[in-house]
């Protein structure tokens, strides 16, 4: 089974999900078997204001382990990440980073803040 371990900067309890990528999609948002798809399909929250269509940065995660198990970022994801607050070299969008290896182990951190360009709304 593949595993995703999620830590939240907001202080919410960390979660670990075990799943079989071949059973994707697990729900309706983000690319099938993406981090967003896996988390939401297992009842684990991750913001996704655009519905997982790579039109915002609210599902930004920082990958702390197992980046090699994720599908490479495409140009539209890179363009979006350019504008993500708290960008790191291992930042990904949860809706785009897909796990296909049934033995993958991926650890991610969910930043505290999401961006909406205007303070006082959204996050």
């Amino acid at each position, binding site marked *: 089974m593949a595993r995703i371990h999620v830590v939240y900067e907001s202080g919410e309890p960390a979660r670990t999900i075990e799943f079989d990528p071949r059973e994707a999609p697990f729900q309706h948002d983000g690319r099938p078997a993406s981090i967003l798809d896996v988390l939401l399909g297992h009842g684990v929250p991750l913001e996704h204001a655009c519905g997982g*269509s790579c039109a915002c*940065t609210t599902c930004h995660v920082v990958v702390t382990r197992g980046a090699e198990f994720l599908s490479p970022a495409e140009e539209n994801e890179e363009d979006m990440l350019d504008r993500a607050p708290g960008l790191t070299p291992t930042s990904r969008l949860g809706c785009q980073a897909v796990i296909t290896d049934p033995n993958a182990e991926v650890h991610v951190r969910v930043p505290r803040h999401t961006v909406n360009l205007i303070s006082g709304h*959204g996050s």
Partner: protein
Amino acid sequence: MAVEHTARVEDIVEYGPETRGLWLRLATPLAFLPGQFLSCLLPVGGTTLTRPYSIASDPESTERVEIVVDLVPNGPGSHHLFSLVAGDTVRYTGPWGTFALEEAPSSETIFIADGTGIAPIRPMLRRALATAVRPVTLLYGHRAGAPLLFADELAAPHPGYTMHVVPSAALLEETRRRWVDGDTDRTRHFFICGVGAIVHELRDLLRGAGYARQAVRYEKW
């Protein structure tokens, strides 16, 4: 998680059999930038769908905004919004999105909209015209059989502003002819919005022709 707000459907504009504008009266005034979207939380089939809808109205109106909805075949979110009548409630979060324009770039600005991709472009264009010091152009792709939203308003004359309407299928070639083959100026800024592959095709054409990555902004629905 994001703070939820509520809005009431105040008016429904029938732009065509499969395209509607929903004017929402917001319970909480909304500060947003031209180009941003609302994330609607739609109760469908026992679950909550999160679906983004660009704000087509100007940010100066903070308590009443318009979103444009296309009826998508097998799209439960759009079918739900099409079932709403005046007085119904919509839950949303936002505003969201980084495809936004606070003021016109210092160089020539080109907006390219395909069909209802005009929704976020409309307030961006109006803001650009209010702040631009260089020419502003709108290239507007018209889908056969679909309404040309806001056509009269967008065609209104303004100093330094030009609008061209072409069939959607001609958007790529028209862009190539005007801004790739037409001259060697690569200082323009582009804002592109539409549905489907054409958005990335336009992006790739312009970046491949030498325009800076950051000068070619886009939103693909």
